[in-house]
């Protein structure tokens, strides 16, 4: 079944701020096998001029609202999680995320288009702190496999 175009243009916002914690940064860095001291050692991060531990650039993916930054649990969207693969991902950072940041992420579904039998969803993310500082933006492309209607 094809996706519901009515969702294009809608914003999805985290219901509560995403609190960036030191231990989450350390666990994420360990999970990507990265022992950069700025991810693990508060004193090293401070010596490098940061207020606290620095998060790896791709840590931003953790702060999107819900699964995939989309209302995947809303049956009206018609998205089957099992059919989705990641197509593209981009982040542009004004500054790195650091421990102590409280992030509000706004995810906007900017388009759904059919490419053959697949549907391609483009979502943009904007990351603001609770004090109103925009720190990053992102773009995510997801591919919903085989859900586009066949062309006559």
């Amino acid at each position, binding site marked *: 079944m094809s996706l519901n175009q009515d969702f294009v243009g809608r914003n999805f916002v985290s219901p509560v701020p995403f609190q960036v914690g030191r231990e*989450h940064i350390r666990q994420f860095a*360990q999970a990507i096998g*990265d022992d950069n001291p700025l991810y693990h050692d508060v004193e090293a991060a401070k010596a490098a*001029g940061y207020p606290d531990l620095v998060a790896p650039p*791709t840590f931003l993916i953790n702060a999107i609202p819900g699964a995939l930054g989309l209302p995947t649990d809303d049956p009206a969207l018609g998205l089957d999680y099992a059919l989705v693969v990641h197509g*593209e991902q981009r*982040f542009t*950072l004004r500054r*790195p995320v650091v421990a102590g940041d409280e992030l509000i992420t706004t995810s906007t579904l900017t388009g759904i288009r059919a490419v053959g039998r697949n549907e391609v969803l483009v979502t943009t993310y904007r990351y603001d702190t609770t004090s109103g500082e925009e720190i990053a933006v992102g773009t995510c492309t997801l591919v919903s496999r085989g859900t586009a209607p066949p062309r006559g």
Partner: protein
Amino acid sequence: MTATIGYDDVEVGTELPERLFPLRRVDLVRYAGASGDFNPIHWSERAAAEAGLPGVLAHGMLTMATATRLVTDWVGDPGAVLEIGVKFSSPVVVPDDDEGASVSVRGVVEKKLDDNRVVVNLTTRCRGEKVLMAARATVRLS
């Protein structure tokens, strides 16, 4: 926050030497926990087979993080990364054995921009296949 690489010390064509990063099944489980992405195709052989996949796959974001690491290790300061973008072109199949998959990443400075910024083009392969396309990072050097 200062990159350990100087803008004047690199040219278009400067290479970031290839490195190999092992990804084993336990790394996928650890990434699932740290990222909250528990899609079973990243840890369950059965779920991967039911989805018609050739095996359990690494999270695309784990592959992206691995490629990004070549750049952050090069400059030392991860805060020097201003932009990172990739296309996921081929899945990284991670077998349930001691070796797992080996992901190779190498980079080359593709452009020098103003304000001490450079664009690094990253080539990321697994078993000879390019697993990322159009993988580029914009980094501010010192």
